[in-house]
């Protein structure tokens, strides 16, 4: 689901060891075979460029309004598969959890005319949208769940984005795989204003559990799972995400995954 390209059964610690082991093996391969050209920096940069082609083509065939398929209640998976972070470890998050998120405030700032802050109760009081959609993980699996939340476009109307705002950046509470910096993601204004793009506070009719990103997580139903940030703490509207963390617009994007994430 969200934030992951790996099997969720492995804990972050085991995962880290595996990543380190993998890097070691990679180094060994490098020593043995010189530098393997199939993953040289130049090749990676060249191959990464086709993402722009995919993005342009999909923008062409998928209209702004085209909706992701919505399913029936009977299609909902008995257990929605969690992955990425399943419980943020920071004291700040623990404090929010202890208060049952009554102290939670969602700040929306950056290139907006009227920066605002919303409590969870205020978000829940706004008009909501409930959708039964298919979650497609970059690994290849899919899970169907029913999400309830506030339409992001409604929140944007409240804060009034400035003309130069091009991206909406979501900052999260979790540090995936011990990353020193928190998980983050970004959407362009088209996707942010898509009618199915919601900040979900409910899953399958109940309050969103911690495992799935409480108190709120992003749903962007025309994209892969890693775009759908969990544990969203604040939102910033920016002209460019070049200066944020690795500069590629998201945690996995900084690690070589496509920002578009439509395939």
């Amino acid at each position, binding site marked *: 689901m969200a934030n992951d*390209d*790996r*099997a969720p059964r492995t804990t972050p610690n085991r995962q880290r060891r595996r990543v380190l082991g*993998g890097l070691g*093996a*990679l180094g*060994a*391969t490098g020593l*043995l075979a010189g530098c*393997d050209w*199939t*993953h040289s920096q130049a090749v*990676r940069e060249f*191959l*990464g460029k*086709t*993402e722009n*082609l*995919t993005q342009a083509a*999909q923008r062409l*065939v*998928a*209209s702004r309004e*085209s*909706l*992701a*398929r919505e*399913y029936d209640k009977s*299609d909902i*998976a008995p257990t929605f*598969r969690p992955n990425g972070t399943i419980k943020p470890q920071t004291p700040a998050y623990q404090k929010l959890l202890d208060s049952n998120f009554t102290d939670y405030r969602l700040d929306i700032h950056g290139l907006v005319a009227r920066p605002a802050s919303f409590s969870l109760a205020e978000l829940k009081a706004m008009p909501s949208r409930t959708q039964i959609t*298919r979650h*497609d*993980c*970059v*690994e*290849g*699996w*899919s*899970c*169907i769940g029913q999400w309830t939340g506030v339409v992001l476009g409604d929140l944007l109307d409240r804060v009034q984005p400035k003309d130069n705002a091009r991206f909406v950046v979501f900052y999260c509470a979790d540090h995936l795989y011990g990353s020193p910096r928190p998980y983050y993601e970004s959407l362009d204004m088209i996707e942010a204003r898509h009618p199915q793009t919601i900040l979900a506070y409910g899953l399958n009719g109940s309050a969103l559990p911690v495992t799935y990103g409480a108190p709120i997580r992003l749903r962007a*139903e*025309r*994209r*892969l799972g890693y775009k759908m940030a969990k544990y969203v703490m604040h939102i910033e509207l920016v002209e460019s995400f070049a200066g944020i963390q690795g500069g590629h617009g998201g945690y*996995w994007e900084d*690690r*070589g*995954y*496509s920002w578009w994430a*439509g*395939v």
Partner: protein
Amino acid sequence: MATNADPGPPGTSALIKRHSLATRLWHWITAVCLLVLLTSGLQIFNAHPSLYWGSDSDFDSPFLSIGARRDANGDPMGYVSIEGLQIPTTGVLGWSSVNGHMQARAFPAWATLPGPQWLSLGRHWHFTAAWVFGVLLVFYLLYSIVSRRRRRLIGVHRGEMGRFGHEVVKHATLRFSRARSYNIIQKLTYLTVLFVLLPLMVLTGLTMSPTMDAAWPWLTEVFGGRQSARTLHFLCAFALVAFFLVHLLLVLISGVLNNMRAMITGGYQTDGQTDGWADDRADAAPAGTHGANAEERHHGQR
């Protein structure tokens, strides 16, 4: 018809032009693309080595999965599980060696692009090759429909299906004639690969894209859901691998130099016999040399 493609009188061999430059270029570029697509596809598959039918993943009962577990002695083993039936595959699938160290991975490092487990880069390789392959395929299929040469080579003529049994016997006894157009088994095979398998690879691939599903909702309808499309993508890929192995074998045993020349310079040496259909009539072959007779004559010489 160009002089170099003149079949000459039946019974004498002739050097004809079998493949146009377009066909030869398409063939070799696509061959490279398919190699990249297969190996990077296996890399992507390794990220979640299970296949399902329907819209979503029923994790407890996949249709097919590749994995590693401990055997009765507590030693790690690799397995392939199809509809619950487990086949041990230690060393190749599920549990294989990477630089001398055994590792849990569905397809082994020698079969994946890149070698190390690296999903994001595997995806970049896959989609780059997919763009080249997909765009060329569209143009080549259109060309195959409008080109007279292609139609003559792979088009099935009325009544030709009746020769299927005859051709099966000829193939089984490894008697290959060098006719101007393909025999009926070749025609049906190439038509299936070109117009069924290759387009299915593109369409099932597109169905896995959530953005494409929003743009073209009929995709998931046609294939019975995203996970079904993923499973079909995998099965079609291995159907293409099977085709490739047979293709390679037959190229090798039915006159490898002549066959290779046809796909490199375009030239192909026929053995003078006609294929019994099609062109001899259209190309005003001398009277009295009906294809079947020519073929019988040829057989008589053996």
